[in-house]
């Protein structure tokens, strides 16, 4: 068992002033909080029989995705 002595330190001992701390000392305040309004298109290409695209569907899905990126989103 070790006894530890806790020293009582106040903000003045650290070279700080009460006025410069906490809400009073803050230089910036939050005035509003909103949820980001980014609407995603959620266009997911899936396989015809099961969720994953397989076999011949793979090439077709790649072409479909490229068409969406080029013609709809216009990012490629």
């Amino acid at each position, binding site marked *: 068992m070790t006894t530890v002595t806790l020293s009582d330190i106040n903000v003045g001992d650290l070279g700080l002033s009460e006025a410069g701390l906490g809400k009073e000392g803050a*230089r910036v305040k939050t*005035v509003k*909080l909103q949820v980001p309004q980014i609407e995603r298109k959620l266009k997911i290409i899936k396989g015809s029989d099961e969720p994953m695209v397989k076999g011949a569907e793979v090439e077709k899905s790649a072409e479909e995705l490229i068409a969406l990126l080029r013609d709809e989103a216009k990012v490629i």
Partner: protein
Amino acid sequence: MSNEVWVVSDMKLDGSVRKVTFEALSEAKSKVAGKLGGPLCGVLLGSGVSGFAEELGKYGAEKVYVVDDEQLKDFNTEAYTIALSELIKKHEPAVVIAGNTVFGQDYFPRVAARVGAGVTMDAIEIGMTDDNKLQIERYSHSSKAIPTQVFHDHHPMMTTVRPNSFKVVEDQKTPEVVDGGVEINAADLKIKTIELKTKESDRPELTEAERVVTGGRGLGSEENFKHIYELADVLGAAAGATRAAVDAGYCPYDMQVGQTGKAVSPNLYIAIAVSGAVQHFAGMGSSKIIVAINKDPEAPIFEKCDYGIVGDLFDVIPPFTEKVKSIVSEG
């Protein structure tokens, strides 16, 4: 105190100015300086950087402060902190803005502490209130919330801005070039850079890329990351990775996107074998178009993307890359 609005240049390793500087100048011109009624000024910190003043003038800088010092040749946190804080104390601008790059994140808060300024980081919107206080918006809570923050009456008001958040608008000016009058004493620096090793890469830098292709742990190996690099190169994109892929040793940490990596905001973000954990989303959620390719139809990324394919990346990526390549070659 003056009513000047400063944008501090962020320099690349090759000595040129990063695009985020031009984005910040363009946005600050209309949204901050225009409302405050003060001049828009550029700040160049470095060695042999005076020649870039004209380039800042192209994006509306009417005045450019230059601290050209051998001690600023390679980025050194302490030297840059001293240079900018002394410059601020001397000329007392109203607003100081910099890019939220690894450099800006490093020395900007230290400068704010030295000059007793308020500082916000990674702003995605900037503007002035009716009573001339800087107001910003930024992401918080892993990109699930956007707080609007306003500065009190403390000056200067300082913020970093997220790359790719603002459009670059040319507004040709012939800036007055002002010697900042700050000298950095080598004896004041506790650390010095003795060597700078750079990595050769033709790919754009992750944080300022218009397109990013990212791989997750589903790639399975370092070797399989070639699928990411090939697609990235065809698209002229930067290559990124999830924390899981980096932790697995498939790629270096400087590719990590997310809460504990880099924040990106490209026009196109392609996430391959990425589950879409909230920590990853925190670093890429503001991307304009998100594409997901994952074999797990229940992966959370499919609830947060614009386009997606439920498929095995090893089946889907090779034909996808070939088709993109043919589109690119057709011009």
